[in-house]
């Protein structure tokens, strides 16, 4: 059985984000990077399935981006993926979800993956479109935001978390794609011996241009922080003064007392 897990490297959320000079994405200098959290759930679940299947199965991890994304790939290898594909693209951040999905589906279409895992969305762009679009482009079934996963003999039983805490059970047959949500599992730490072993695992490199056939369907027009809110007004004085001031403000600035 052939498994694929797709991961993205995203800025650490504790970074300080500033828009870049073009104003369509953030400035990448001085950011710390890590694997997208939802993708860690995907990697963990894929590894658990790989362990369940044992000999004869193979788990490939794939990531698109500049050289730095190899760090995220190496983490996935140290967690237990068998081999890796790095689709080299220094401009991945400016591609829309349609293009990113098409790069992956073009790569995957003749590889006969039985099951593809992705995170349910990325922590930076947050479109939640790449996973489902890959499934659509490959013509395979898919279910999203899974919080439970079982596999037996070509059949997947996935538990989904819906609004209001309602759970849904979805059954689908391979080949298929699932997108993974918080709560699915607790990702393992890469241990030092496994980090060492990961150094010997193969990372094949492909240029994104060799796989990209599609034009973007959407472009980012502007990327900026929200306007700064005013600091609020602190009223001072005795209670009578405070009440008078407050009534004045409510009359002047709101519709409450008109």
């Amino acid at each position, binding site marked *: 059985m052939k498994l694929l897990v797709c991961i993205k490297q995203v800025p650490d959320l504790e970074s300080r984000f500033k828009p870049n000079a073009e104003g369509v994405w953030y400035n990448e200098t001085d950011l710390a990077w890590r694997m997208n959290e939802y993708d860690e759930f995907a990697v963990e679940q894929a590894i658990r399935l790989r362990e369940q299947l044992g000999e004869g199965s193979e788990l490939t991890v794939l990531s698109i981006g500049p050289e730095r994304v190899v*760090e995220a790939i190496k*983490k996935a290898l*140290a967690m237990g993926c068998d081999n890796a594909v790095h689709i080299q693209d220094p401009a991945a951040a400016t591609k829309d979800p349609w293009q990113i999905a098409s790069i992956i589906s073009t790569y995957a279409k003749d590889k006969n993956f039985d099951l593809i895992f992705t995170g349910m969305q990325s922590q930076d762009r947050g479109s939640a479109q790449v996973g489902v679009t890959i499934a659509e482009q490959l013509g395979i079934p898919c279910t999203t935001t899974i919080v439970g996963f079982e596999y037996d003999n070509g059949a997947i039983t996935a538990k989904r978390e819906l609004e209001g805490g309602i759970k849904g059970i979805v059954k689908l047959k391979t080949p298929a794609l699932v997108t993974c949500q918080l709560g699915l599992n607790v990702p393992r*730490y*890469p*241990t*030092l*011996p496994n*980090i*060492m072993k990961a150094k010997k695992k193969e990372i094949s490199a492909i240029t994104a241009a060799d796989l990209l056939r599609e034009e973007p369907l959407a472009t980012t027009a502007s990327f900026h922080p929200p306007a700064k809110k005013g600091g609020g007004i602190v009223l001072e004085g005795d209670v009578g003064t405070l009440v008078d001031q407050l009534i004045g403000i409510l009359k002047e600035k709101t519709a409450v007392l008109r």
Partner: protein
Amino acid sequence: MNFELSQDHKVLQSAVRDFVEKEIKPIAMKIDEEHMIPDALVAKMGEMGFLGSYLPEEYGGAGLDMLSYAIVVEEVSKACGSSGVLISAHTSLCSGPIYTFGTEEQKKKWLPPLNSGEKIGCFLLTEPDAGSDAGGTATTYRRDGDHFVINGSKTFITNGGYLGTGVLLASFDRSLKHKGITAFIVDLSSPGVTILKNENKMGIRGSYTTAFAFDDLRVPVENQLGQEGKGFNIAMDTLNGGRIGIASQALGIAEGAFERALAYSKERKQFGQAISEFQAVQFKLADMWTSIETSKLLTYRAACLKDAKKSYTMESAMCKMHASETATYVTKEAIQIHGGYGYIVDYEVERMYRDAKITEIYEGTNEVQRVVISKMLLS
């Protein structure tokens, strides 16, 4: 010159950081209060490979390098100086000399349980009357058939309380001073080993600092480490490597305190603004960070020199001395930036201040480091 960590080292750093954030940071205060690192944490650090980072895979180690080891000790010490020194003393002072000076049989026998954390290692050099002056070792041994019989006492033994594996220095003729010293690998759960006490200390309170008495401790002859009379050289070589571990511990403690001071300076408001807006605080932060960065460069460099099998005696002395003085300075300033809150246990910087001080003292006081450095400059 390239001052960037390699991708592999960054992967390791981030993995260790995640582990520390979830498994150690939340219990660091408890470790200090209860004078005890929970067995479960020691076991988890063993599973993670923290206790055999640079030892080869064939002996159950992770097979990484000295720089990886420095990063592990640093990251762990950011949250907990006690856990940092457990790793450092275990690896540098016990597994290290067994790997460097042991026979193939000794390595195969003793290293796998150390690297997995099944046994915790320690280094039995210091005695009540022999600290920096190792030549004054008064613990003696004599041959008796297939065994050596050891008598004497050792003190300030980091990790001693685990009663795991020790590298012990003893003399067969005290009049020969350091030329009479031989090293042995000892199983501290053997008869003849008595714990006199585990010291109650100012800092690194989760770490055992143990005083031992040895009363006719019988050690099989095959446990002699290196040649007879060469124990002093083994001890000096071991301490050289150990200094990189202590520098990494000190560096981590300083970074942990700095992170808190920086965050607090942005939160704490006085006179209508964050205290980080005051130049008095800004200058403190600038000085603290500069000391941390210089310590890091010295420490990583010493580790890289050891990896490259080049001489690193002076560099390890410099990084240990500078990083430890950085740790006491930065933790002290971190308390000052916190004001009165810094003096309160809950803010943790006071623990870091207490933990920092020992790094100027153990594995060669900073006065001894200055002797090492100046001797090499003037020789």
